[in-house]
C-alpha cells in the first residue's frame, strides 16, 4: 500500500513532495527520496483527487513519520501544501460563472435571489424606510447571545400566528440566527448534543446545503422520498411509506412552503395526513421556512403546514429566513424556534441554544434584526411589506405562466404543466444534466445542474429567449 511504504520510509518528506513526484515533475531530492518515489509508484497511486479530509489524514501520517524519523527538514512547502482545492459550491458557483461570462444575452436563473422585471436586485421600500429610521439613532452594542428579543418575538408571531396558543403560553424558545442556514445549523448542533442517537431524515431532493449542515453537525442522516420525477409532483405515497418505516422518534426536515429546489408542496389535505402519521410515529418535525409570503403572496397561507402541525399538538422546531421575503439576503437575518412543553422548558432550551451560538459567533449581527423589528412593529410598514411581498410573489407567478405559455407556443411536445403547478421561487424543470450543460454552453443560460430554474431571474425581457433555449435542448 502506498501509504505504508511512505510511513516506513526514513527520509522525511512532505505530502506535497510526494504528490509532485508522483505526477512526474522533476524532483531535486536525494537518492533516498527516490526510494520513496518508487515505493509509492509501485505500491499504488496516491489519489490526486483526495478530499480535504483524506489528504489531511495522509498529511498527518507523513508528518508523524517525519517527527519519528527525528530529522530536521526545511519545509519549503509549509503546512498546507496538501490542501486540495475544494469543489465550487453547486449553487453559488453558478453565479460566479455567470458573472465571468461576457455574452450579451446571458441569463442567470441560478441562485434564488429575487430580481425585478428589469433583472435588477431589489431593496424593498419598507426596508429602505426602516433603515432610514434606524440610521444614526442606535448604538451598536452586542446583542445577547440569543439575539434581539424584540426581533424574535415578532418573528415567531409571523411563523405561528399572532393568536397562537403556544405563544400565549410562552412556551416557544426562540433565538435569532444567521439567516436560514444558521437556524438549521444551530438546530442540528442542538439535536446532536441533546439527542445524540437520533437520525435526521432529509427529503429527496433538497437544498444541497442541508446535507452539509447535518454532516458538519455529525448527525446521521437518511433520505425520504419526496419528488416524483414521473409526475414532476409530490410522491405522496412514497413519502408516507418512508415516514411510516422510519424508526419512531426520528427527526424529519420539512420545507414549510415553496420546496427548494422542486417547488412541489403537499396540499392542505396531504399535510394533515402527514401530521397524523407523525403523531402515530412520534416523529419530530423540523420546518425550514425560507419563503413565507413568497410562495402564495400570503404569509398566513404559506404558514399553513406549520399551523396544521402546531394545532395537532406537535412540538415542532422552525427555522425562518428573512433573506428572500424581506430581501435582506446579505444581512443574514433568521430565527430558530422550538415549541416546548412548558415555559420553564423553553427557557432551558433557549439557554442551551445560546451555549451553542456562543462559541460559534458569540451573538448575531444587529443591523438586519433591527430592520425586521422596525418593519414588523409598525402597522404601516408591515402593511407595506405585505403588499411588496405579494408583488414579488405575483411577478413570479406571472413569469411561470409566461414561460409555460411560450414553451407551448413553440410547439414543445413535452408536458410543461409543472411550471405553473409548482410554487415559489424555483421550477424543477426536469431537464437533465446534459441538457443543462447545453443550455449554459450554447445559450449562456445559467442554472444549477439539477435543472432548477430560479423563476425570480425570469423577466418579460428574457422569457422568450429562455423558453426558446429550453425548447432547443429538450426537443
Amino acid at each position, binding site marked *: 500500500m502506498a501509504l505504508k511504504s511512505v510511513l516506513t520510509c526514513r527520509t522525511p518528506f512532505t505530502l506535497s513532495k510526494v504528490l509532485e513526484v508522483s505526477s512526474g515533475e522533476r524532483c531535486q531530492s536525494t537518492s533516498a527520496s527516490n526510494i520513496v518515489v518508487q515505493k509509492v509508484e509501485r505500491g499504488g497511486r496516491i489519489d490526486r483527487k483526495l478530499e480535504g479530509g483524506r489528504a489531511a489524514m495522509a498529511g498527518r501520517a507523513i508528518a508523524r513519520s517525519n517527527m519519528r524519523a527525528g530529522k530536521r527538514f526545511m519545509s519549503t512547502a509549509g503546512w498546507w501544501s496538501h490542501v486540495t482545492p475544494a469543489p465550487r459550491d453547486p449553487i453559488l458557483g453558478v453565479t460566479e460563472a455567470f458573472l465571468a461570462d461576457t455574452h450579451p444575452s446571458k441569463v442567470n436563473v441560478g441562485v434564488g435571489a429575487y430580481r425585478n422585471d428589469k433583472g435588477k436586485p431589489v431593496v424593498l421600500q419598507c426596508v429602505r424606510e426602516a433603515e432610514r429610521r434606524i440610521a444614526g439613532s442606535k448604538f451598536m452594542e452586542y446583542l445577547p447571545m440569543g439575539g434581539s428579543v424584540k426581533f424574535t418575538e415578532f418573528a415567531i408571531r409571523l411563523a405561528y400566528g399572532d393568536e397562537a396558543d403556544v405563544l400565549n403560553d410562552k412556551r416557544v424558545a426562540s433565538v435569532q440566527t*444567521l439567516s436560514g442556514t444558521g437556524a438549521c445549523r444551530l438546530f442540528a448542533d442542538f439535536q446532536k448534543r441533546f439527542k445524540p442517537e437520533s437520525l435526521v431524515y432529509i427529503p429527496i431532493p433538497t437544498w444541497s446545503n442541508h446535507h452539509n449542515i447535518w454532516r458538519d453537525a455529525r448527525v446521521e442522516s437518511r433520505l425520504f422520498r419526496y419528488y416524483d420525477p414521473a409526475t414532476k409532483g409530490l410522491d405522496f405515497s412514497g413519502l408516507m411509506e418512508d415516514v411510516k418505516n422510519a424508526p419512531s422518534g426520528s427527526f424529519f426536515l420539512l420545507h414549510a412552503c415553496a420546496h427548494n429546489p422542486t417547488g412541489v408542496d403537499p396540499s392542505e389535505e396531504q399535510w394533515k395526513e402527514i401530521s397524523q402519521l407523525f403523531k402515530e410515529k412520534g416523529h419530530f418535525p423540523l420546518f425550514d421556512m425560507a419563503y413565507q409570503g413568497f410562495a402564495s403572496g400570503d404569509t398566513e397561507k404559506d404558514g399553513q403546514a406549520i399551523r396544521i402541525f402546531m394545532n395537532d399538538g406537535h412540538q415542532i422546531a422552525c427555522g425562518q429566513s428573512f433573506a428572500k421575503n424581506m430581501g435582506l439576503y446579505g444581512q*443574514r437575518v433568521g430565527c430558530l424556534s422550538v415549541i416546548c412543553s412548558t415555559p420553564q422548558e423553553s427557557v432551558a432550551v433557549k439557554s442551551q441554544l445560546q451555549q451553542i451560538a456562543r*462559541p460559534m459567533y458569540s451573538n448575531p449581527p444587529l443591523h438586519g434584526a433591527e430592520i425586521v423589528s422596525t418593519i414588523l412593529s409598525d402597522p404601516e410598514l408591515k402593511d407595506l411589506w405585505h403588499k411588496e411581498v405579494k408583488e414579488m410573489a405575483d411577478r413570479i407567478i406571472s413569469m411561470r405562466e409566461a414561460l409555460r405559455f411560450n414553451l407551448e407556443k413553440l410547439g414543445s411536445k413535452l408536458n410543461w404543466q409543472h411550471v405553473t403547478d409548482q410554487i415559489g421561487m424555483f421550477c424543477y424543470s426536469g431537464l437533465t444534466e446534459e441538457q443543462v450543460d447545453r443550455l449554459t454552453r450554447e445559450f449562456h443560460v445559467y442554472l444549477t445542474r439539477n435543472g432548477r430554474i430560479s423563476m425570480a431571474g425570469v423577466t418579460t425581457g428574457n422569457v422568450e429567449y429562455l423558453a426558446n433555449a429550453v425548447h432547443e435542448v429538450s426537443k
Partner: protein
Amino acid sequence: MMEEGRKGRYTSSERRLQALVQHLSPSGSSLAGVVQMEVTASGPVGSVFEHVEQAPEDPILGVTVAYNKDPSPIKVNLGVGAYRTEEGKPVILNVVRKAEERLLADRSRYKEYLPITGLADFNKLSAKLIFGKESPALLEKRVATAQCLSGTGSLRVGAEFLAKHYFQRLVFLPAPTWGNHHKIFSNGGLTVKTYRYYDPRTRGLDYQGMVEDIRAAPSGSLILLHACAHNPTGVDPTPEQWEGLRQLIRNKRHLPFFDSAYQGFASGSLDLDALAVRSFVADGGELLVAQSFAKNMGLYGERVGSLSIVCKKEAIATHVESQLKLVIRPMYSNPPIHGASIVATILGDSELYAEWTIELKAMANRIISMRHQLHSAIQARGTPGDWTHILKQIGMFSFTGLNREQVAFMTKEYHIYMTSDGRISMAGLSSKTVPHLADAIHAAVTGLSFSRQ
C-alpha cells in the same frame, strides 16, 4: 410538570394531552397518569427535549445581566469589554456614523448575498491593516482571508479548518485566557491544553513558564497567542520576549494562531500593536490570525472580523481559501454585509482612516488615564500591596489580583460588577467612578482579611 393555567384553567398543552389521554387510555385515567407515561409504541407523549437542563449564564455576559437587574442608584459595570465614555455611555465613532451615512445615501447599494468568504474589499483592507501594506506575504499574494463573524467567528472557522486539514489536534491556550476560547476550539474539533502565562505573584508574565510549556509541547502544536492587550490579564510580552517566543515557536515547528481583538486599542498605535504578528510574518513562516473590529471600530453588534491564513505560496493560499468556504457554507453560508461595508468604507478612504486613528488614540488614551487615576486613588487610600500592575498592564482589562470572595464582596456591598476572576474592564471606569472602585478595593482587601472567621 403539568401546571394549572390561570384561574384554574388548563393550558392549551394540557387540553391537548387531556384529549390524547381519552384516546389512548380506555379507562379514561386522569391527566396525572399521563405524566408518568414513558415513550409508548406511538412515540413520546411529551417533549423530546424534556431532559434539557438550563445552561448556566455565560460568565462574562452574565455580569451585565446581573448589573442591569441591580436597582441600586450607585453601581458600576466593569464586566464586559465594551468601551464607555467618561459619561459611561457607549460610543459610536464619528467615522462610523459618516460611513453609515454614505452607505445609506448610496441608492445603488443592494443587500445581496456576499460571497462565502465575504466582502472582497473588506478582506484586502483588513489584511493590510494587520500585516502592513508592504507586507511580503500580501505582495506575494499568499494570504487567504475570509470575512467572519467578528473575533469569535474567525477563531471558530479557523479551528474547524485546522481540525479538518492540519495534522496536529492540540491547541495550547494561555492560562488564563478569554473564557470563550476553550469552547470555540473544542467545539471546533480540537483538543485544548494550556501553557503558563500569568504569574499571580508578580501580576505579570510568567515568561519562564511560558517558554518551558511551549517547548514541551509536541512539535507542530497550535499555539494561541493574543496579539496585544491580553484578555483578561492585560499582560503582554515585551518586544524582546516576543522575539524569544518567535524563535522558540519556529524551532519547534509550532503553528501560531493570533487573536487580534485590540489592534490600535492597546498602545494607541495600529502599527505598534501589530508588531508581534508582523514579526512572525517577516520570518517567512506560516500563521493564522483572527481579527475583530468590535472594539477598535466600536462595531460590536455588527459582528465584523476576518480570518487570515498566511501560507508559503500563492497557489496554496488559493486552495486554502476554497476549503475555508466548505467550513463556512454549512455554518452560516455567507457573512453579514453591513458592518464589513462600514469598515471597508473607512479603511478605504484616507481621510476617514486618518480620522479613525485619531478617535482610536483618544479611546486608548482615556483608558490609560483611567489606569493612572485608579492607581493614584488606591495609593491615596494606603491600600496594602503592590498595585503597579494596574499601570503596567495594557489594553481594556486589568487583572486586579482580587479573589472570588473579594469580588463577591465588592459586588454585594459596593455594587461593582466584574468577572469573578478579578478582571475589570478599564473602559467601564470614569473619573466619577474611580473613587468608588478604589473604596471597594480597599474594603475588600483590608476589611475581609479582618472579618473572616
